[in-house]
């Protein structure tokens, strides 16, 4: 028998969308584990983020006497040439740093993941060491290397060629040092994406007659667009916010940036929270624009499932004749970003006070700083405290970020963009405002939070959530939705699907995020210094105090120990990640 539509009565449905039926469609009754997890995570996230965020907005728009207004913006950005110069400097610096660090970080990520470049292991080290070296030492290390007067590099070129070409006290110096400092996160985010993308698409491009450059711009880069956009955004915001580099390198050359203004405001009494907040709100607007733009440029995150479960085979490209040159490039970068600063660190950790390298200094070398370090219960204790807080915060942030990214990447609705922007906002809340916000809330909560390590745990989890989100959503968006769906249809519960399918596939990115948060937790000072508990110092506070005490060389020793400790941790976790993820041939 043959049935046609003509045999059936006409239905109203055929005249257009059946909007009226939408309401009835809700899945009533069954509330699954998935929904509970999502609700809990969303609530926790909202709580963690909104506490400082609402505080920021409140302090920005409401003066201490209770009147609402925009005077904070007038204080933070008075309408004069000074402000415009400051904004111009800031944008030039941030944009320059973004471009340079994207080129460096992205280039090396491509080399490391997609080619047979030699010394690959060095690159993953180069991606982490600059992050671990205490910020308070990193900029001075570059002064010792690149200052026009005393820079080691100038001494070398001066001796060899009679010229002193380097001047780290300049916009270029600032951009260079900041880029070396930001390149790691670009490298880490992009290597996860490159690792996951399918080389056969590039091969197809080659076969279709595209040149190398066009394959790069038309195929390779678009494939990793979400990671690319996310990394660019983070690096840009980081450059807007960094303190040490502009103050060390920019100020002596007369370059004032946004953070100089922030510092100026911090010093005032009574603290002009309205103006500080206004800068935070300004950054927030930029960040929201960025999230939106990254969403547009990067395409919708959900579309880029490159691990599709279809003949997916990561392969490395043979560099051929270019291989030795690429190897040289990697070595050069390693020397510049890792070896030189680390050597300066190691050298000064063996001294009592810093002096220029030379024969005369050899006699002063000793291990005294290391003896002090390991025998001082305060310093050892601060390592323990930080380790506890950092591991907990990194774990909590990645758990939250992974679930939140899943919501952003995998579900529809207006809420997900909001969630995306919300989880990004802690990145732009100035450290002081952040610290004060947590103090204000938890001083009034009778739970044992203020005055314990818990408040630092909350602070780090919240502050570093944005990094976790970028890592997790970049990792998740590379996993094709069908891999999850096939597990569901095969009868796996949501939880099982997450655990057995999605997480293992996203593991390299998620563990990468965990490592990153662990490392930056060791650095965090701005809110730590306000919130730490006497007797329970964390490493960043110890470093700050030792530095203030004039023990810069002891701080160098702490830096060396940190580099060793965290490198071991990182290598261990990367080994685990490599076991879980898809292996490249």
């Amino acid at each position, binding site marked *: 028998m043959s049935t046609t539509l003509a045999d059936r009565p006409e239905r109203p449905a055929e005249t257009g969308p059946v909007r009226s039926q939408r309401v009835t469609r809700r*899945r009533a009754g069954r509330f699954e584990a*998935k*929904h509970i997890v999502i*609700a809990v995570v*969303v*609530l926790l996230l*909202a*709580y963690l983020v*909104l506490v400082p965020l*609402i505080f920021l907005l409140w302090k920005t728009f409401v003066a201490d006497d209770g009147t609402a207004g925009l005077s904070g913006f007038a204080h933070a950005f008075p309408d004069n040439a*000074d402000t415009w110069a400051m904004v111009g400097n800031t944008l030039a610096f941030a944009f320059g740093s973004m471009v340079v660090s994207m080129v460096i970080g992205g280039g090396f990520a491509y080399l490391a993941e997609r080619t047979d470049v030699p010394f690959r292991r060095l690159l993953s080290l180069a991606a982490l060491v600059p992050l671990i070296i205490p910020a308070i030492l990193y900029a*001075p290390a570059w*002064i*010792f290397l690149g*200052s026009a*007067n*005393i820079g080691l590099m100038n001494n070398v070129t001066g001796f060899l060629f009679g010229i002193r070409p380097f001047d780290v006290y300049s916009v270029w110096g600032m951009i260079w040092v900041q880029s070396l400092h930001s390149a790691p996160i670009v490298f880490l985010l992009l290597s996860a994406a490159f690792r996951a993308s399918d080389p056969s698409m590039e091969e197809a491009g080659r076969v279709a007659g595209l040149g190398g450059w066009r394959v790069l711009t038309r195929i390779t880069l678009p494939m990793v667009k979400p990671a690319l956009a996310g990394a660019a955004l983070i690096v840009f915001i980081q450059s807007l916010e960094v303190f040490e580099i502009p*103050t060390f390198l920019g*100020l*002596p050359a007369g370059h*004032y940036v946004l953070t*100089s203004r922030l*510092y100026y405001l911090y*010093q*005032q*009494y009574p*603290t002009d929270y309205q103006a500080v907040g206004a800068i935070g709100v300004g950054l927030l607007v930029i960040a929201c624009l960025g999230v939106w733009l990254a969403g547009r440029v990067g395409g919708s995150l959900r579309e880029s499932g490159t691990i599709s479960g279809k003949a997916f085979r990561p392969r490395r490209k043979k560099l051929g004749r270019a291989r030795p040159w690429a190897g040289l490039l990697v070595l050069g970068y390693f020397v510049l970003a890792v070896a030189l600063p680390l050597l300066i660190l190691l050298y000064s950790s063996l001294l009592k*006070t*810093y*002096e*220029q390298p030379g024969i005369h200094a050899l006699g002063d070398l000793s291990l005294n700083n290391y003896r002090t370090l390991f025998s001082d219960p305060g310093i050892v204790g601060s390592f323990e405290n930080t380790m506890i807080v950092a591991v907990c915060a990194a774990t909590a942030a990645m758990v939250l970020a992974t679930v939140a990214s899943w*919501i952003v990447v995998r*579900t*529809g*609705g*207006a*809420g*997900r963009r*909001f*969630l995306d922007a*919300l989880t990004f906002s802690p990145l732009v809340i100035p450290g*002081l405002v952040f610290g*004060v916000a947590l*103090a*204000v*809330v938890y*001083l*009034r*909560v009778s739970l044992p939070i203020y005055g314990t390590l818990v408040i630092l745990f909350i602070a780090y989890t919240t502050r570093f959530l944005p990094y976790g989100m970028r890592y997790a959503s970049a990792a998740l968006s590379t996993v094709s939705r069908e891999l999850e769906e096939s597990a569901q249809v095969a009868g796996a519960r949501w939880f099982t699907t997450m655990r057995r399918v999605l997480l293992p596939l996203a593991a390299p990115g998620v563990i990468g995020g965990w490592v990153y948060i662990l490392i930056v937790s060791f650095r965090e000072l701005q809110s730590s*210094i*306000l919130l*730490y508990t*006497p*007797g329970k110092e964390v490493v960043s506070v110890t470093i700050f*105090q030792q*530095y*203030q*005490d*004039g023990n*810069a060389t002891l701080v160098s020793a702490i830096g060396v120990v940190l580099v060793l400790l965290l490198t071991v941790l990182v290598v261990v976790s990367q080994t685990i990640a490599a076991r879980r993820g898809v292996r490249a041939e």
Partner: protein
Amino acid sequence: MLKKPMGGLAGLVAAVGIGALLSACGSPATANTQAAQDAYAKYASMKGKTREDALVAAAKSEGSVSLYITNSAIKPEIVPAFEKKYGIKVTIYRATTEQLRTRILQEAGAHRIQNDVVETKDSEMAILDQKGLIAPYQSDITAQVPDEAKTDDLVGAYYIATLPIHNTKQVQPGELPKDIAGYADPKWKGKIAVDQGDFNWYEDLYNYYTKQKGMSDADFVKMMKSVAANFRVVDGHVANTQLLQAGDFPVFLSDFLHYVPANGNTTLSFEQPMTPVTLQILGANPMKGAAHPAAALLFCDFYLTEAQKYLNDAGYIPTNPSAIPGYTPRLPEGTTFVYDDWKTLASDKGNAWQQAWSNLLKGQDPVLPQ
């Protein structure tokens, strides 16, 4: 896949945020304040050995003392000596002056004072006193402290001296000008560092030249502008003293005396200090809301007596040198001192001086508070 629950997300989030703010509004109060006042009153009239014995006995039963400090010599030297002498456990919170103030104000706002003693500089102490947070320090020891080191709120334990420090490998003492006007010479361009936070030093110079030397505002401005043309603006005394020592620049105009170690280091020198040398007064005060008032007083007493030796060793100028056997001052007799105008700095005028200094550094006008 889940789709619809996201629609309600915004509402959920808003509810949580409001909840968080509301929870922040209720606040537990503390009853420490009255107990501490009574204790301070009780010990105020006691003297010498009697006072010390009574304080030690009470402090021992209190068991510990919590210090909020800015001074870097307290932790390595003074606290161990105090703990050793009295057997009272000391916990320390240490930060910069602004951070210290912020933390105390937050804790006070929530009625949860966490510290017994605050140790910071004159203008900060004045701010805390305006907020009614610190108790006046009363003791017979104050008689040995010169009047210049006392403010309404504070009995100073030491001074921080601001003066030029130079790198001896790059300049000889003879080359250094005797006063600030000498640095207007173009040969100093980019070689004389000033910290962008040192507006108190700038105000001190102003007070010295206009009030003590009778210079007109216009002349002062003219002099400072010509000197400022040579400034190398830096941030952070500690870090830049390191760079000074490494030879990155030869002179740090507004550096601190205590960064030149008392012995051993020959690279840094403050010889032939410029006139005037400006002084900040710093000291320790008990908190009104202290949980351990006797221990707090005991520490403040200790700070003005036995700790003086350690403060002196650390490069500070002690206010009670009678507590140091065989004391010889580091700065020569006859050095001209100007004291920080802490009253102005703790008022709205302080911000005006900050703005004026910032303008001077950037080559903008006006360079005096309006």
